[in-house]
């Protein structure tokens, strides 16, 4: 390439030091001798231009005489002369020239130098020069040059670019010609430049922008956005099969870019510009296209087009009077987009734009406007809005106390029935039929999830976005999206009555109830958002103002979600791991609606297949494991909302209370009963060959490796802690004193690659100790898991959870699930062993609730409890199956010893509430030598003595009966 050749071969007297005034003088000579660009000298010219940039920057930083020379010789005029030549290969030279200018303006620190450079209008001549913009390289360098200049704009430098007298601002007017350039980087540069220009506080320049350019520029933007969303709509309509996800995601991202750009302009708070922009947005885009797409079928079709036409004419008139640039026709798109797309786009608008005049109007039109005005079209809508705003202002001035007397002072809530309350809650806003508000009606209708939740999700996002938009005044949202507070007594501020949008809450609760059905088509994200909105709707002053009837509904949703999850309890082997993982996942991040609305995937009809790459919460579950995951999440979500509404704190979750866990470097008193029974000395052989001497302590939930504390006798310092539930123990074939222990990291969801916490060989003093350790570890793991499963069972109100969990489940777990019995893989399998504690599958939708209730009723009947004794063959059955599943390992603990001993169960059942912290401090029971008979007994006692655990009896009988029927 030309760059590799040496350009200074000739005896031109090139100075040795490239950074000196002499060198610039030499370069000046080169330029003046090569004023005509040709094939021969273009390389030389490029090199010269490049060197000039370098030396000028050096001069700017080190020697002012360099710059003086450059200005004195008017060297910028050479630049102009060069670029004006259209000889062969001039684009080469142009590119270098532009880059030199870029470097110059980018790196100059000395302000005077900058002023001098800008002072003789050469730069503006360069800006207006018609480069060969078809050359993408020239285009890129040119637009970068303009952008670099725009970054130098301030109240002083603006006068070099904007000429007040000639009303000329080439930097801006030239740049916005490229605002719709096919190249995205060029478009971005144009946007950057415009924002940098608007930012400059110069009244006359801004007046120029508003008067001469704003109308055409903004209407062009608005027109292109309109065109764009038509494309987007077409893409959604034609892609029910998720074939063009990429294209759709581009279109959505592009729309977001537009909105963010508009928002960035609006946020600069330039009153004049914002007025023009708001006007354009509302008249030509948001109302005619977005909002009118929400209208229902009943609407007369002719109306809108006529209005659009009239509007169009009016706007065109405006433009022709104010703009010189009328190249693009400005007809607003008369076509509408589908309701789903409109809801989605409006959500984006309300999530991104917070400029009050825009969003306030939108919210008013959606929430308040009625059919009579709506039929008259866009203009009337806006007029009505303005009128309303004026009236409101007056009303507030005139009568501050009027509102307080609007409703009669009502008596205490306790003394009135639900119906009355319901009636009272209905305020004038709602008593007018919703159907009189065409847009709100559409939004509400979209909330119907009986078929699917496609549109419902967007209705929710829109309502949510309006509720949280800072630009929307509270008075518009009040009652519709926020509880309304009324003082019922004039004197006492305590007498407050809250009302809320019962109609909407009904709708939301219906979504929640639907979500709790086994085979519903409501996605998790829809449920989460519905719940979020619900809380927003009914929480006032930090507490819930939910009516009794609604309270009952949400409680029954909770019951149903619990029942739904009960179906999966133990039906999946990895239930515990899933349960904890989902909890961890959900507590880590809460739903971000703005991010949700950035995802184009939700614009396509909901699907179940994970092959689309759509996030789990944004699609329907696929397969049994995902259905279980979904049930877990529904349970958590509903539970959490019920707690919030009741003003309670979560005390049961997570299953592991981190406070009760031993931490690394914590000193432990190993003489207390909690630890001392299980101190086994061992040597840990790490993978890297190092050896450490440690004592193995097996706590309730944790495995702890301690080192004796040098300060206190009988104490140890924890050097490594891991959860028993996550361990894997295998013996060593060659050495009976050795165990291989792996402790996996708890599922946190953050890291995908799960490097084990520990993976090492443990050497014990003799094989007896080794076996003891192995036994305790294996048992510890089973027990830790059992304990957690019982905890879950209590959460799920599963009767009889004190019984042993299915042995295959506990023994199997995550790490050797392949050994599980075939039955476990099929949760629908009806031939479950009689010892199976979980209730029967309750799948038929609608029936769930009733069966659940009836069981509850039956269970709480003490007579039945006493009658129904344990089935005698149960324990035998389960133990036999357990041994079967353990055939591989010869020295397994005896099956019955896995039972949870009496004291634990008692504790558990008596104090359900604070179980989590207690679990960890209960002394670890001695169970290794207990015989089967001894163990059976305590359990029997428990099942009679405690009401909760005695559920096992009735349940077991049921399941057995069912089992018999099915197997026979």
């Amino acid at each position, binding site marked *: 390439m030309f760059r590799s050749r040496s350009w200074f071969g000739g005896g031109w007297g090139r100075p040795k030091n490239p950074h000196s005034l002499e060198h610039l003088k030499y370069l000046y000579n080169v330029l003046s001798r090569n004023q005509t660009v040709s094939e021969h000298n273009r390389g030389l010219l490029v090199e010269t231009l490049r060197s000039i940039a370098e030396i000028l920057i050096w001069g700017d930083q080190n020697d002012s005489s360099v710059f003086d020379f450059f200005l004195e010789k008017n060297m910028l005029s050479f630049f102009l002369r060069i670029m004006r030549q259209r000889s062969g290969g001039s684009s080469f030279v142009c590119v270098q020239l532009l880059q030199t200018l870029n470097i110059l303006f980018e790196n100059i620190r000395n302000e005077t130098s900058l002023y001098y450079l800008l002072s003789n209008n050469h730069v503006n001549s360069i800006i207006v020069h018609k480069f060969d913009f078809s050359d993408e390289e020239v285009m890129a360098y040119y637009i970068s040059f303009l952008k670099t200049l725009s970054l130098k704009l301030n109240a002083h430098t603006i006068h070099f670019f904007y000429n007040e007298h000639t009303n000329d601002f080439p930097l801006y007017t030239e740049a916005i010609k490229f605002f719709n350039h096919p190249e995205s980087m060029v478009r971005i540069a144009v946007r950057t430049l415009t924002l940098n220009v608007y930012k400059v506080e110069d009244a006359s320049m801004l007046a120029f922008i508003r008067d001469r350019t704003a109308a055409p520029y903004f209407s062009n933007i608005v027109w292109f956005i309109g065109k764009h969303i038509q494309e987007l709509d077409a893409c959604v309509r034609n892609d029910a099969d998720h*074939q063009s996800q990429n294209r759709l995601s*581009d279109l959505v991202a592009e729309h977001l870019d537009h909105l*963010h750009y508009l928002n*960035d302009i609006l946020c600069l708070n330039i009153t004049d510009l914002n007025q023009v922009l708001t006007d354009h947005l509302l008249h030509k885009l948001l109302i005619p296209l977005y909002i009118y797409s929400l209208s229902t079928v009943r609407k007369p079709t002719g109306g809108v087009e006529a209005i659009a036409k009239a509007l169009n004419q009016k706007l065109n008139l405006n433009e022709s009077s104010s703009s010189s640039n009328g190249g693009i026709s400005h007809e607003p798109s008369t076509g509408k987009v589908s309701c789903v797309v409109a809801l989605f786009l409006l959500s984006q608008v309300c999530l991104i734009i917070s400029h009050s005049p825009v969003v306030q109007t939108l919210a008013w039109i959606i929430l308040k406007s009625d059919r009579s005005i709506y039929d008259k079209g866009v203009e009337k809508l806006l007029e009505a809005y303005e009128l309303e705003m004026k009236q409101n202002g007056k009303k507030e001035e005139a009568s501050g106390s009027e509102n307080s007397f609007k409703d009669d002072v009502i008596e205490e809530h306790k003394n009135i029935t639900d119906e009355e309350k319901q009636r009272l809650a209905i305020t004038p806003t709602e008593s007018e039929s919703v159907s009189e508000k065409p847009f709100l009606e559409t939004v509400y209708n979209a909330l119907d999830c009986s078929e699917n939740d496609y549109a419902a999700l967007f209705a929710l996002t829109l309502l949510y976005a309006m509720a949280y938009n800072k630009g929307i005044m509270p008075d518009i949202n009040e009652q519709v999206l926020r509880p309304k507070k009324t003082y019922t007594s004039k004197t006492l501020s305590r007498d407050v009555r809250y009302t809320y949008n019962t109609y909407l809450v009904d709708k939301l609760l219906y979504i929640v109830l639907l979500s709790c059905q086994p085979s519903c088509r409501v996605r998790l994200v829809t449920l989460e958002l519905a719940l979020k909105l619900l809380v927003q709707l009914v929480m006032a002053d930090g507490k819930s103002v939910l009516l009794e009837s609604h309270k009952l509904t949400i409680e029954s949703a909770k019951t149903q979600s619990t029942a739904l999850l009960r179906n999966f309890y133990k039906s999946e082997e990895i239930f515990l791991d899933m349960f904890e993982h989902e909890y961890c996942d959900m507590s880590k991040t809460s739903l971000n609606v703005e991010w949700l609305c950035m995802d184009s995937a939700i614009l396509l009809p909901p699907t179940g297949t994970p092959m689309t790459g759509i996030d789990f919460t944004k699609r329907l579950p696929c397969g049994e494991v995902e259905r279980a995951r979904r049930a877990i999440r529904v349970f958590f979500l509903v539970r959490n909302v019920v707690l919030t509404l009741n003003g309670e704190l979560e005390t049961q979750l997570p299953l592991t209370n981190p406070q009760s866990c031993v931490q690394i470097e914590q000193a432990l008193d190993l003489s207390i009963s909690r630890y001392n029974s299980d101190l086994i000395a061992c040597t840990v052989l790490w993978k890297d060959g190092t050896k450490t001497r440690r004592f193995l302590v097996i706590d309730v939930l944790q495995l702890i490796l301690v080192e004796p504390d040098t300060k206190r006798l009988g104490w140890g310092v924890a050097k490594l802690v891991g959860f028993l539930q996550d361990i894997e123990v295998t013996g060593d074939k060659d050495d009976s004193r050795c165990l291989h222990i792996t402790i996996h990291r708890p599922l946190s969801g953050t890291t995908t690659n799960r490097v084990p916490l520990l993976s090492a060989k443990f050497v014990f003093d003799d094989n007896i100790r080794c076996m003891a350790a192995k036994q305790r570890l294996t048992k510890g793991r089973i027990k830790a898991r059992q304990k957690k499963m019982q905890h879950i069972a209590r959460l799920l109100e599963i009767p009889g959870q004190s019984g042993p969990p299915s042995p295959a489940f506990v023994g199997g777990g995550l790490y050797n699930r392949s050994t599980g019995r075939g039955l476990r893989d099929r949760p629908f399998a009806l031939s479950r062993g009689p010892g199976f504690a979980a209730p029967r599958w309750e799948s038929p939708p609608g029936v769930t609730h009733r069966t659940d209730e009836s069981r509850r009723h039956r269970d709480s009947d003490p007579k039945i409890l006493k009658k129904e004794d344990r089935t005698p063959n149960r324990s035998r059955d389960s133990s036999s199956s357990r041994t079967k599943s353990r055939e591989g390992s010869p020295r397994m603990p005896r099956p019955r010893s896995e039972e949870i001993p009496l004291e634990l169960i008692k504790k558990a059942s008596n104090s359900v509430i604070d179980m989590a912290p207690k679990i960890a401090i209960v002394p670890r029971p001695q169970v290794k030598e207990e015989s089967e008979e001894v163990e059976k007994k305590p359990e029997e006692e428990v099942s009679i003595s405690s009401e909760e655990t005695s559920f096992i009896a009735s349940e077991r009988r049921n399941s057995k009966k069912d089992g018999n029927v099915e197997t026979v």
Partner: protein
Amino acid sequence: MSYAYLFKYIIIGDTGVGKSCLLLQFTDKRFQPVHDLTIGVEFGARMITIDGKQIKLQIWDTAGQEAFRSITRSYYRGAAGALLVYDITRRETFNHLTTWLDDARQHSNSNMVIMLIGNKSDLESRREVKKEEGEAFAREHGLVFMETSAKTAANVEEAFINTAKEIYEKIQEGVFDINNEANGIKIGPQHSPTNPSLPGAGGAGGSQGSSCC
């Protein structure tokens, strides 16, 4: 000049880490490293050769535009590669990497190749961030890592070219939808797509429903 592909890059990182200097060093390496001259530029383009193919790199520096959300958003989205730069002599620039990365991951397309660059490796005596730390960060977040010096030009070529190689490999694997220019990749004028529609990421449809039981 004709090319097989054009890759668009962005350079991100705190101010003063030497982004524009890296850019200029790469696109115009004749700017001699001089002790008392810092010189950079916001845009540059250069041709490189990978696998016998001419590939043009366009590099856009996003400095000074962070104030506008719409701008950063669009930049990320339009790029096929990003150089995430920190200054090895300033610990805080390293500490901010997570923020930059989160931003990049949120706005960019998921296939964007990100290279982590510890710049100013010539200033060994003032080093505050160990090379191992950079390596560890890169490993943790799945980035390619390199220490460079815009001043001595050490590793500058490699940083840009290795990123390009990775993008090129992704194209070969069919991960990038090259017909979609929004990805920051453009096919050269004479390389009009003869094999239309390489399967894009996640575009697998068709078998919908069959995987459900």
